[in-house]
Protein backbone atom coordinates (compact mmCIF):
# COMPACT_ATOMS: atom_id res chain seq x y z
CA UNK A 1 0.00 0.00 0.00
CA UNK A 2 1.70 3.15 -1.23
CA UNK A 3 0.39 5.23 1.65
CA UNK A 4 1.91 2.95 4.27
CA UNK A 5 5.27 3.00 2.47
CA UNK A 6 5.24 6.76 2.35
CA UNK A 7 4.47 7.02 6.05
CA UNK A 8 7.27 4.64 6.95
CA UNK A 9 9.76 6.57 4.82
CA UNK A 10 8.70 9.97 6.13
CA UNK A 11 8.99 8.65 9.69
CA UNK A 12 12.61 7.61 9.00
CA UNK A 13 13.39 11.04 7.61
CA UNK A 14 11.87 12.74 10.63
CA UNK A 15 13.80 10.51 12.98
CA UNK A 16 17.13 11.57 11.52
CA UNK A 17 16.31 15.24 11.11
CA UNK A 18 18.64 16.39 13.86
CA UNK A 19 21.69 14.45 12.75
CA UNK A 20 22.73 16.52 9.76
CA UNK A 21 21.76 18.74 6.84
CA UNK A 22 18.60 17.65 5.14
CA UNK A 23 20.03 16.54 1.78
CA UNK A 24 22.65 14.30 3.40
CA UNK A 25 20.03 12.65 5.58
CA UNK A 26 17.86 12.12 2.50
CA UNK A 27 20.57 10.04 0.84
CA UNK A 28 21.24 8.03 3.98
CA UNK A 29 17.57 7.19 4.32
CA UNK A 30 17.40 6.18 0.64
CA UNK A 31 20.24 3.72 1.19
CA UNK A 32 18.87 2.42 4.51
CA UNK A 33 15.28 1.91 3.41
CA UNK A 34 16.27 0.01 0.27
CA UNK A 35 19.12 -1.85 2.00
CA UNK A 36 21.59 -0.65 -0.61
CA UNK A 37 25.29 -0.05 -0.06
CA UNK A 38 24.92 3.58 -1.09
CA UNK A 39 22.64 6.19 -2.61
CA UNK A 40 23.03 9.53 -4.29
CA UNK A 41 20.78 12.18 -5.77
CA UNK A 42 21.73 14.10 -8.91
CA UNK A 43 19.99 17.16 -10.27
CA UNK A 44 19.69 17.42 -14.01
CA UNK A 45 18.32 20.04 -16.29
CA UNK A 46 17.81 19.59 -19.98
CA UNK A 47 19.97 16.49 -20.18
CA UNK A 48 22.85 18.16 -18.40
CA UNK A 49 23.79 16.95 -14.94
CA UNK A 50 23.59 19.95 -12.67
CA UNK A 51 25.30 18.60 -9.60
CA UNK A 52 24.94 16.18 -6.79
CA UNK A 53 22.59 16.97 -3.92
CA UNK A 54 24.03 14.27 -1.71
CA UNK A 55 25.88 10.97 -1.73
CA UNK A 56 25.80 8.56 1.18
CA UNK A 57 29.39 7.37 0.70
CA UNK A 58 32.47 7.88 -1.49
CA UNK A 59 31.49 5.21 -3.99
CA UNK A 60 28.14 6.87 -4.57
CA UNK A 61 29.93 10.18 -4.99
CA UNK A 62 32.19 8.56 -7.58
CA UNK A 63 29.26 6.97 -9.40
CA UNK A 64 27.75 10.42 -9.71
CA UNK A 65 31.04 11.99 -10.70
CA UNK A 66 31.46 9.43 -13.48
CA UNK A 67 28.00 10.15 -14.82
CA UNK A 68 28.66 13.84 -14.62
CA UNK A 69 31.98 13.47 -16.42
CA UNK A 70 30.86 10.99 -19.06
CA UNK A 71 27.22 11.97 -19.53
CA UNK A 72 26.10 8.34 -19.29
CA UNK A 73 25.03 5.94 -16.57
CA UNK A 74 21.93 4.74 -14.73
CA UNK A 75 20.88 8.18 -13.42
CA UNK A 76 21.43 9.94 -16.71
CA UNK A 77 19.49 7.25 -18.51
CA UNK A 78 16.68 7.17 -15.94
CA UNK A 79 16.32 10.92 -16.32
CA UNK A 80 16.41 10.86 -20.11
CA UNK A 81 14.02 7.93 -20.51
CA UNK A 82 11.80 8.98 -17.61
CA UNK A 83 11.73 5.49 -16.10
CA UNK A 84 13.59 3.25 -13.68
CA UNK A 85 16.86 1.89 -15.06
CA UNK A 86 18.01 -1.34 -13.46
CA UNK A 87 21.34 -3.10 -13.82
CA UNK A 88 21.58 -5.95 -11.34
CA UNK A 89 24.96 -7.26 -12.53
CA UNK A 90 27.28 -4.52 -13.65
CA UNK A 91 30.38 -6.72 -13.81
CA UNK A 92 28.78 -9.34 -16.03
CA UNK A 93 30.96 -9.46 -19.16
CA UNK A 94 27.83 -9.93 -21.25
CA UNK A 95 26.53 -6.53 -20.12
CA UNK A 96 27.26 -3.85 -22.73
CA UNK A 97 25.66 -0.90 -21.10
CA UNK A 98 27.50 2.34 -20.53
CA UNK A 99 30.81 1.38 -22.07
CA UNK A 100 32.61 4.31 -20.50
CA UNK A 101 30.84 4.38 -17.12
CA UNK A 102 30.85 0.69 -16.23
CA UNK A 103 34.58 -0.04 -15.81
CA UNK A 104 35.04 2.92 -13.47
CA UNK A 105 31.96 2.00 -11.42
CA UNK A 106 32.98 -1.65 -11.14
CA UNK A 107 36.52 -0.70 -10.18
CA UNK A 108 35.12 1.45 -7.39
CA UNK A 109 33.14 -1.50 -6.03
CA UNK A 110 29.66 -1.17 -7.51
CA UNK A 111 28.16 -4.45 -8.71
CA UNK A 112 24.52 -3.50 -9.13
CA UNK A 113 23.22 -0.01 -9.98
CA UNK A 114 19.68 1.36 -10.20
CA UNK A 115 18.47 4.78 -11.33
CA UNK A 116 15.05 6.33 -10.62
CA UNK A 117 13.94 9.68 -12.07
CA UNK A 118 13.00 12.41 -9.61
CA UNK A 119 9.64 13.67 -10.78
CA UNK A 120 7.29 16.37 -9.67
CA UNK A 121 4.11 15.86 -11.63
CA UNK A 122 5.19 15.46 -15.23
CA UNK A 123 8.48 17.31 -14.83
CA UNK A 124 11.79 15.58 -14.08
CA UNK A 125 14.40 17.37 -12.02
CA UNK A 126 17.07 14.70 -11.64
CA UNK A 127 17.53 11.11 -10.55
CA UNK A 128 18.12 8.89 -7.53
CA UNK A 129 21.04 6.52 -7.74
CA UNK A 130 21.23 3.30 -5.72
CA UNK A 131 24.15 0.88 -5.81
CA UNK A 132 25.07 -2.40 -4.16
CA UNK A 133 28.50 -3.93 -3.68
CA UNK A 134 27.28 -7.36 -4.79
CA UNK A 135 25.13 -8.26 -7.81
CA UNK A 136 21.42 -8.99 -7.62
CA UNK A 137 18.12 -7.39 -8.62
CA UNK A 138 15.88 -5.22 -6.48
CA UNK A 139 13.01 -7.17 -5.01
CA UNK A 140 9.45 -5.85 -5.38
CA UNK A 141 9.50 -4.11 -2.01
CA UNK A 142 12.82 -2.39 -2.67
CA UNK A 143 11.62 -1.29 -6.08
CA UNK A 144 8.38 0.09 -4.68
CA UNK A 145 10.26 1.84 -1.88
CA UNK A 146 12.69 3.36 -4.37
CA UNK A 147 9.80 4.82 -6.38
CA UNK A 148 8.34 6.42 -3.26
CA UNK A 149 11.79 7.69 -2.19
CA UNK A 150 12.34 9.31 -5.58
CA UNK A 151 9.03 11.16 -5.23
CA UNK A 152 9.83 12.23 -1.68
CA UNK A 153 13.31 13.40 -2.72
CA UNK A 154 11.89 15.46 -5.59
CA UNK A 155 9.43 17.18 -3.30
CA UNK A 156 12.07 17.68 -0.62
CA UNK A 157 14.34 19.43 -3.11
CA UNK A 158 11.56 21.75 -4.23
CA UNK A 159 10.51 22.41 -0.65
CA UNK A 160 14.08 23.41 0.20
CA UNK A 161 14.24 25.69 -2.81
CA UNK A 162 10.90 27.31 -1.91
CA UNK A 163 12.57 29.04 1.02
CA UNK A 164 15.41 30.50 -1.02
CA UNK A 165 15.74 34.18 -1.89
CA UNK A 166 14.92 34.79 -5.57
CA UNK A 167 17.65 33.82 -8.01
CA UNK A 168 19.69 31.97 -5.42
CA UNK A 169 20.06 28.33 -4.54
CA UNK A 170 18.59 27.42 -1.15
CA UNK A 171 21.14 27.27 1.66
CA UNK A 172 19.82 23.85 2.58
CA UNK A 173 20.62 22.58 -0.91
CA UNK A 174 24.14 24.05 -0.87
CA UNK A 175 25.08 22.39 2.40
CA UNK A 176 26.12 18.83 1.69
CA UNK A 177 25.82 19.22 -2.06
CA UNK A 178 28.56 18.99 -4.59
CA UNK A 179 27.76 21.49 -7.24
CA UNK A 180 31.09 21.01 -8.89
CA UNK A 181 32.26 24.57 -8.37
CA UNK A 182 35.84 23.53 -8.99
CA UNK A 183 34.92 22.04 -12.37
CA UNK A 184 33.20 25.23 -13.45
CA UNK A 185 36.07 27.39 -12.20
CA UNK A 186 38.51 25.19 -14.10
CA UNK A 187 36.36 25.49 -17.24
CA UNK A 188 36.55 29.25 -16.89
CA UNK A 189 40.32 29.20 -16.48
CA UNK A 190 40.85 26.86 -19.41
CA UNK A 191 38.52 28.92 -21.58
CA UNK A 192 40.73 31.95 -20.89
CA UNK A 193 43.91 29.93 -21.37
CA UNK A 194 42.83 28.60 -24.76
CA UNK A 195 40.68 31.48 -25.93
CA UNK A 196 37.65 29.19 -26.39
CA UNK A 197 34.15 29.25 -24.90
CA UNK A 198 33.46 27.49 -21.61
CA UNK A 199 31.64 24.59 -23.28
CA UNK A 200 34.70 23.81 -25.35
CA UNK A 201 36.92 24.25 -22.29
CA UNK A 202 34.78 21.76 -20.33
CA UNK A 203 35.13 19.27 -23.20
CA UNK A 204 38.92 19.65 -23.05
CA UNK A 205 38.95 19.00 -19.32
CA UNK A 206 36.79 15.95 -19.82
CA UNK A 207 39.00 14.63 -22.60
CA UNK A 208 42.09 15.10 -20.43
CA UNK A 209 40.46 13.31 -17.49
CA UNK A 210 39.42 10.42 -19.70
CA UNK A 211 42.78 10.15 -21.45
CA UNK A 212 44.60 10.03 -18.12
CA UNK A 213 41.99 7.87 -16.39
CA UNK A 214 41.51 10.46 -13.63
CA UNK A 215 38.31 11.83 -12.13
CA UNK A 216 37.25 15.11 -13.67
CA UNK A 217 37.12 16.79 -10.28
CA UNK A 218 40.76 15.90 -9.61
CA UNK A 219 41.87 17.38 -12.92
CA UNK A 220 39.81 20.50 -12.22
CA UNK A 221 41.47 20.92 -8.83
CA UNK A 222 44.89 20.79 -10.50
CA UNK A 223 43.87 23.48 -12.95
CA UNK A 224 42.53 25.77 -10.24
CA UNK A 225 45.67 25.21 -8.16
CA UNK A 226 47.63 26.24 -11.25
CA UNK A 227 49.51 22.94 -11.37
CA UNK A 228 47.96 22.17 -14.77
CA UNK A 229 47.63 24.54 -17.72
CA UNK A 230 46.12 24.13 -21.16
CA UNK A 231 47.85 26.12 -23.82
CA UNK A 232 47.60 24.32 -27.12
CA UNK A 233 44.19 24.79 -28.74
CA UNK A 234 44.97 22.28 -31.41
CA UNK A 235 45.89 19.41 -29.10
CA UNK A 236 42.73 18.16 -27.36
CA UNK A 237 43.41 16.38 -24.11
CA UNK A 238 46.97 17.62 -23.84
CA UNK A 239 48.11 20.03 -21.20
CA UNK A 240 51.45 21.58 -20.29
Amino acid sequence: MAGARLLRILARLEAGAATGPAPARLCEVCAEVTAMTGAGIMLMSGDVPGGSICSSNEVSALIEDLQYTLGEGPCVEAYQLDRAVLEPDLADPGVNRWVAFTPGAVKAGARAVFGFPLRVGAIRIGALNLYRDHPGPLDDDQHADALVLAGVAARAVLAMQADAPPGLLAAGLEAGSDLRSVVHQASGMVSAQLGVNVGEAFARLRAHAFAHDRPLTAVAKEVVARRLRFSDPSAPGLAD
Partner: protein
Amino acid sequence: MPKEALLVRTLVELADSLVDDFDVVELLSLLADRCVEVLGVSAAGVMLVAPEGDLRVVASSSEAMRVVELFEVQSHEGPCLDCYSSGKAVLNEDLTAGRWPRFASVALDAGFRSVHALPMHLRGAVIGAINLFGTDEGPLSAEDVAAGQALAAVATIAILQQRVASESRVLIDQLNTALTSRVVIEQAKGVLAERAGRSTESAFEAMRHYARDRNLHLADVARGVVNRTLAPGALSAPRPQRPS
Protein backbone atom coordinates in the same frame (compact mmCIF):
# COMPACT_ATOMS: atom_id res chain seq x y z
CA MET B 1 -27.63 9.30 -24.27
CA PRO B 2 -28.84 7.53 -21.10
CA LYS B 3 -27.88 9.29 -17.88
CA GLU B 4 -25.58 6.54 -16.57
CA ALA B 5 -23.62 6.55 -19.80
CA LEU B 6 -23.33 10.33 -19.70
CA LEU B 7 -22.20 10.20 -16.09
CA VAL B 8 -19.48 7.73 -16.96
CA ARG B 9 -18.43 9.75 -19.97
CA THR B 10 -18.26 12.92 -17.87
CA LEU B 11 -16.14 11.24 -15.22
CA VAL B 12 -13.74 10.03 -17.90
CA GLU B 13 -13.53 13.50 -19.42
CA LEU B 14 -12.84 15.01 -16.01
CA ALA B 15 -10.19 12.36 -15.35
CA ASP B 16 -8.42 13.34 -18.59
CA SER B 17 -7.76 16.70 -17.03
CA LEU B 18 -5.64 14.94 -14.43
CA VAL B 19 -2.97 14.29 -17.02
CA ASP B 20 -3.35 17.24 -19.37
CA ASP B 21 -3.29 20.95 -18.82
CA PHE B 22 -6.75 22.48 -18.77
CA ASP B 23 -8.63 25.72 -18.20
CA VAL B 24 -10.45 25.77 -14.85
CA VAL B 25 -13.41 27.83 -16.10
CA GLU B 26 -13.92 25.50 -19.06
CA LEU B 27 -13.74 22.44 -16.83
CA LEU B 28 -16.28 23.83 -14.37
CA SER B 29 -18.60 25.00 -17.16
CA LEU B 30 -18.57 21.44 -18.46
CA LEU B 31 -19.25 20.20 -14.94
CA ALA B 32 -22.21 22.55 -14.51
CA ASP B 33 -23.75 21.58 -17.86
CA ARG B 34 -23.33 17.87 -17.23
CA CYS B 35 -24.82 18.17 -13.72
CA VAL B 36 -27.98 19.46 -15.31
CA GLU B 37 -28.09 16.58 -17.80
CA VAL B 38 -27.21 13.82 -15.38
CA LEU B 39 -28.71 14.83 -12.05
CA GLY B 40 -32.31 15.76 -12.77
CA VAL B 41 -31.94 19.43 -11.87
CA SER B 42 -32.85 22.47 -13.94
CA ALA B 43 -29.70 24.49 -13.39
CA ALA B 44 -26.26 24.09 -11.86
CA GLY B 45 -23.41 26.38 -10.97
CA VAL B 46 -19.99 26.20 -9.39
CA MET B 47 -18.40 28.57 -6.90
CA LEU B 48 -14.74 28.46 -5.97
CA VAL B 49 -13.04 30.22 -3.09
CA ALA B 50 -10.58 32.89 -4.22
CA PRO B 51 -7.12 33.31 -2.62
CA GLU B 52 -8.54 36.25 -0.65
CA GLY B 53 -11.05 33.91 0.99
CA ASP B 54 -14.29 34.96 -0.69
CA LEU B 55 -16.42 32.72 -2.90
CA ARG B 56 -16.61 33.54 -6.60
CA VAL B 57 -19.09 32.31 -9.17
CA VAL B 58 -17.02 30.49 -11.77
CA ALA B 59 -19.60 28.69 -13.91
CA SER B 60 -23.37 28.62 -14.34
CA SER B 61 -25.45 26.49 -16.67
CA SER B 62 -27.81 29.37 -17.48
CA GLU B 63 -28.00 33.12 -17.18
CA ALA B 64 -30.88 32.91 -14.71
CA MET B 65 -28.71 30.65 -12.58
CA ARG B 66 -25.80 33.03 -12.76
CA VAL B 67 -27.91 35.96 -11.55
CA VAL B 68 -29.16 34.01 -8.55
CA GLU B 69 -25.66 32.77 -7.71
CA LEU B 70 -24.20 36.24 -7.88
CA PHE B 71 -26.93 37.41 -5.55
CA GLU B 72 -26.10 34.57 -3.22
CA VAL B 73 -22.48 35.65 -3.02
CA GLN B 74 -23.26 39.33 -2.65
CA SER B 75 -25.85 38.81 0.06
CA HIS B 76 -23.67 36.29 1.91
CA GLU B 77 -26.63 33.99 2.19
CA GLY B 78 -27.61 30.75 0.49
CA PRO B 79 -27.11 26.98 0.15
CA CYS B 80 -23.69 27.20 -1.53
CA LEU B 81 -22.28 29.43 1.18
CA ASP B 82 -23.59 27.16 3.94
CA CYS B 83 -22.24 24.14 2.10
CA TYR B 84 -18.83 25.75 1.69
CA SER B 85 -18.48 26.81 5.31
CA SER B 86 -19.69 23.51 6.75
CA GLY B 87 -18.05 21.27 4.13
CA LYS B 88 -21.27 19.25 4.08
CA ALA B 89 -23.94 18.78 1.44
CA VAL B 90 -27.06 20.93 1.72
CA LEU B 91 -29.99 18.88 0.42
CA ASN B 92 -33.73 19.22 -0.10
CA GLU B 93 -34.13 22.47 1.82
CA ASP B 94 -37.58 24.04 1.58
CA LEU B 95 -37.08 27.53 0.14
CA THR B 96 -40.18 28.82 1.88
CA ALA B 97 -39.02 27.66 5.33
CA GLY B 98 -37.09 30.87 5.96
CA ARG B 99 -33.52 29.62 6.18
CA TRP B 100 -32.28 32.15 3.62
CA PRO B 101 -34.90 34.89 3.49
CA ARG B 102 -33.33 37.21 0.89
CA PHE B 103 -31.83 34.46 -1.25
CA ALA B 104 -35.08 32.46 -1.22
CA SER B 105 -37.11 35.35 -2.57
CA VAL B 106 -34.67 35.93 -5.45
CA ALA B 107 -34.52 32.21 -6.24
CA LEU B 108 -38.30 31.82 -6.15
CA ASP B 109 -38.72 34.88 -8.40
CA ALA B 110 -36.36 33.25 -10.90
CA GLY B 111 -38.60 30.20 -11.01
CA PHE B 112 -36.60 27.84 -8.81
CA ARG B 113 -38.34 25.74 -6.23
CA SER B 114 -35.68 23.40 -4.85
CA VAL B 115 -32.03 24.06 -4.05
CA HIS B 116 -29.12 21.81 -3.13
CA ALA B 117 -25.39 22.26 -2.79
CA LEU B 118 -22.51 19.77 -2.80
CA PRO B 119 -19.06 20.56 -1.41
CA MET B 120 -15.94 20.41 -3.53
CA HIS B 121 -13.45 19.06 -1.05
CA LEU B 122 -10.45 16.81 -0.69
CA ARG B 123 -9.19 15.53 2.68
CA GLY B 124 -10.57 18.43 4.64
CA ALA B 125 -9.73 21.21 2.18
CA VAL B 126 -12.93 22.76 0.82
CA ILE B 127 -12.24 24.69 -2.39
CA GLY B 128 -15.82 25.56 -3.33
CA ALA B 129 -19.29 24.16 -3.87
CA ILE B 130 -21.73 23.13 -6.58
CA ASN B 131 -25.19 24.73 -6.59
CA LEU B 132 -28.04 22.57 -7.95
CA PHE B 133 -31.41 24.22 -8.48
CA GLY B 134 -34.67 22.66 -9.64
CA THR B 135 -37.87 24.23 -10.94
CA ASP B 136 -39.98 21.66 -9.09
CA GLU B 137 -39.96 20.83 -5.44
CA GLY B 138 -38.81 17.24 -5.73
CA PRO B 139 -35.94 16.03 -3.56
CA LEU B 140 -32.66 14.90 -5.08
CA SER B 141 -32.54 11.10 -5.21
CA ALA B 142 -29.80 9.20 -3.38
CA GLU B 143 -28.37 8.08 -6.74
CA ASP B 144 -28.26 11.65 -7.98
CA VAL B 145 -26.56 12.83 -4.79
CA ALA B 146 -23.94 10.08 -5.17
CA ALA B 147 -23.42 10.91 -8.84
CA GLY B 148 -23.08 14.61 -8.02
CA GLN B 149 -20.52 13.87 -5.30
CA ALA B 150 -18.49 11.73 -7.69
CA LEU B 151 -18.44 14.54 -10.25
CA ALA B 152 -17.50 17.06 -7.56
CA ALA B 153 -14.69 14.84 -6.26
CA VAL B 154 -13.01 14.35 -9.62
CA ALA B 155 -13.27 18.03 -10.50
CA THR B 156 -11.77 18.94 -7.11
CA ILE B 157 -8.82 16.61 -7.52
CA ALA B 158 -8.15 17.96 -11.02
CA ILE B 159 -8.16 21.58 -9.83
CA LEU B 160 -5.98 20.93 -6.79
CA GLN B 161 -3.51 18.92 -8.80
CA GLN B 162 -3.23 21.65 -11.40
CA ARG B 163 -2.51 24.20 -8.70
CA VAL B 164 0.25 22.05 -7.24
CA ALA B 165 1.64 21.47 -10.74
CA SER B 166 1.82 25.16 -11.58
CA GLU B 167 3.41 25.98 -8.22
CA SER B 168 5.91 23.19 -8.85
CA ARG B 169 6.69 24.50 -12.31
CA VAL B 170 7.49 27.89 -10.85
CA LEU B 171 9.74 26.34 -8.21
CA ILE B 172 11.50 24.16 -10.76
CA ASP B 173 12.15 27.19 -12.95
CA GLN B 174 13.57 28.98 -9.93
CA LEU B 175 15.73 25.97 -9.10
CA ASN B 176 17.07 25.77 -12.65
CA THR B 177 17.73 29.51 -12.77
CA ALA B 178 19.54 29.35 -9.43
CA LEU B 179 21.67 26.42 -10.58
CA THR B 180 22.50 28.11 -13.88
CA SER B 181 23.47 31.31 -12.08
CA ARG B 182 25.70 29.35 -9.74
CA VAL B 183 27.44 27.70 -12.68
CA VAL B 184 28.09 30.95 -14.52
CA ILE B 185 29.39 32.64 -11.36
CA GLU B 186 31.90 29.82 -10.82
CA GLN B 187 32.93 29.92 -14.47
CA ALA B 188 33.44 33.68 -14.24
CA LYS B 189 35.64 33.25 -11.17
CA GLY B 190 37.87 31.01 -13.29
CA VAL B 191 37.93 33.31 -16.32
CA LEU B 192 38.73 36.36 -14.21
CA ALA B 193 41.28 34.50 -12.10
CA GLU B 194 43.14 33.52 -15.26
CA ARG B 195 42.85 36.80 -17.14
CA ALA B 196 43.62 39.08 -14.21
CA GLY B 197 46.15 36.78 -12.54
CA ARG B 198 44.20 36.64 -9.28
CA SER B 199 42.94 33.90 -7.00
CA THR B 200 39.37 32.71 -7.55
CA GLU B 201 38.40 34.20 -4.15
CA SER B 202 39.71 37.62 -5.06
CA ALA B 203 38.07 37.36 -8.47
CA PHE B 204 34.77 36.67 -6.71
CA GLU B 205 35.24 39.67 -4.44
CA ALA B 206 35.95 41.92 -7.43
CA MET B 207 32.75 40.81 -9.14
CA ARG B 208 30.72 41.23 -5.98
CA HIS B 209 31.98 44.78 -5.44
CA TYR B 210 31.35 45.67 -9.06
CA ALA B 211 27.81 44.29 -8.91
CA ARG B 212 27.03 46.07 -5.67
CA ASP B 213 28.49 49.40 -6.72
CA ARG B 214 26.50 49.45 -9.93
CA ASN B 215 23.40 47.80 -8.53
CA LEU B 216 23.65 44.80 -10.84
CA HIS B 217 22.88 41.12 -10.28
CA LEU B 218 26.01 39.14 -9.59
CA ALA B 219 24.93 36.53 -12.15
CA ASP B 220 24.69 39.21 -14.85
CA VAL B 221 28.17 40.49 -14.05
CA ALA B 222 29.42 36.91 -14.19
CA ARG B 223 27.80 36.38 -17.57
CA GLY B 224 29.54 39.51 -18.83
CA VAL B 225 32.89 38.17 -17.66
CA VAL B 226 32.33 34.77 -19.27
CA ASN B 227 31.06 36.25 -22.54
CA ARG B 228 33.94 38.71 -22.61
CA THR B 229 31.59 41.69 -22.71
CA LEU B 230 33.06 42.81 -19.40
CA ALA B 231 36.81 43.28 -19.33
CA PRO B 232 38.84 42.37 -16.23
CA GLY B 233 40.15 45.94 -16.14
CA ALA B 234 36.63 47.32 -15.74
CA LEU B 235 36.18 45.31 -12.59
CA SER B 236 39.12 46.98 -10.88
CA ALA B 237 38.10 50.46 -11.99
CA PRO B 238 37.22 52.86 -9.20
CA ARG B 239 33.55 53.29 -8.33
CA PRO B 240 31.78 55.99 -10.41
CA GLN B 241 31.75 59.26 -8.46
CA ARG B 242 28.41 60.74 -7.50
CA PRO B 243 28.03 64.47 -8.22
CA SER B 244 28.41 66.32 -4.96
